């Protein structure tokens, strides 16, 4: 199977690879997938005044999974929480030209975004209590 140029580019030059400390101020962490399924994504956002100022990922998975999460961090940066909620897996599929067998990678990336946002929200809510 041939990979699209964009998948190859993200795989060879992953954007925003790395981690924030989970308990850092304004950080939300989403971890989705399972090792038995062959992919695990960890996506983190750093939020200031309702805007995502930074994002990082680490992914165990195939090239398309790595590219999907790398792209997700790129898209998240600079978006408000509300805008970030709107990122859909189909946008990722389109941008990376993912073939049908790799659509689950994009679904996983959307789930990771949602999970990171939810984690941030939960922590923010706890603080205001």
């Amino acid at each position, binding site marked *: 199977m041939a*990979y699209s140029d964009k998948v*190859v580019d993200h*795989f060879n030059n*992953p954007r925003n*690879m790395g*981690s924030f400390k989970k308990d850092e101020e304004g950080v939300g962490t989403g*971890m*989705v*997938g*399972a*090792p*038995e*399924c*062959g*992919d*695990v*994504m*960890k996506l983190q956002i750093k939020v200031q005044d309702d805007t995502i100022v930074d994002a990082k990922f*680490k*992914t*165990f*998975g*195939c*090239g398309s*999974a*790595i590219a999907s999460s790398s792209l997700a961090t790129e898209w998240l940066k600079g978006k408000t929480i509300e805008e970030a909620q709107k990122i859909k897996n189909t946008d990722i599929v389109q941008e990376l030209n993912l073939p049908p*067998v790799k659509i*689950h990678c994009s*679904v*996983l990336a959307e*789930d990771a975004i949602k999970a990171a946002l939810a984690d941030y929200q939960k922590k923010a809510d706890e603080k205001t209590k």
Partner: protein
Amino acid sequence: MKLPIFLDNHSTTPMDPRVLEAMLPYFVEKFGNAASRNHAFGWAAEEAVEAARKQIAKLIKADSKEIVFTSGATESDNLAIKGVLEMYHEKGTHIITSATEHRAVIDTCKALEAKGKATVTYLPVDKYGMVNPEDVRNAITDKTILISVMLANNEIGTINPVKEIGKIAKEKGVLFHCDATQGVGKIPVDVQDMGIDLMSFTAHKIYGPKGIGALYVRKKNPRVRIAAQMDGGGHERGMRSGTLAVPLIVGFGKACELCDQEMMAEAVRLTAMRDRLQAAITKALEESYLNGHPTNRLPGNLNISFAYVEGESLLMGMKDIALSSGSACTSATLEPSYVLRALGVGVELAHSSIRFGLGRFNTDEEIDYTIKKVIEIVTKLREMSPLYEMAKEGVDLKSVQWAAH
């Protein structure tokens, strides 16, 4: 050194130029049909086929009349299993095979089961991928008509105790089929000594052409009969009709002759190369685990799981080296390797496996390059892996509640 490097010699092998040279006259010049009995074109073709039959038989210590040409090992497996069942079904319909057989054997058995034509026992293997001959003995019933166990596994290279299984088969009067596709030409094979009654193998795994294989069918002690699965002109003693592919057969013969002459020296060279590859990789990379038997395996085989990284991404990171992985992402089924699973390798480590297949034309320089690349990409992908990060933080990955999808 030329890139890409071919290290996938279990999937197929490049043809040896000496094989091609032997084949060339049989396309344009000596194009006859080996079944044409009444003219010189036919005689020349038949002569070439019979010479090849001898070369092939010699490599496996058989008689040339015991070689039946097929299109490849998949057809040979089908012909052996279906042909024996059809011929001997009145005696019984029970077949014994193993969990790590090639799909050509397992799926043939599954199809026969689904049609209600046979009952099949799939023997488990030990942690190295070996069938226990005593398990074979214990599985035999008065309805058992065939044992089908492979010589060497295509993924992990583990070599089965075929001779012991052959002995039990003889003792119990059950026919023994061996899929020797990966073993023939790589390790010594003797159908007499090993007690094999039917044996599948193919040319393209031993530096011969694709599209030609053989089924060895024992002629005496006992004389094995199989029902043809292809009706037609009654070629190959009625067991496999169809005009013989003369150029391919000539190539198959030459390939076998070369293996017969060079196999022992080649095995020594490949084993040394393989051991060097294994030592360098496992020394540099912690938590890299060998799959298969540490010593009792094919000279050119190395199968390693690299914990915390996924196989397809490893292959993608080593684009200039042709390799194969047991990862689900590289298979059509989206399931990781059933062979590794049968050994008891965890699903996550099955996803992380890479198969290196060394062959006749690989060089030390290529191995050096591969060592460097593997270490580079595994290190890079581990840096990228949340699992590696968690493991380094002391998290027990088994205790994590994963959100499976």
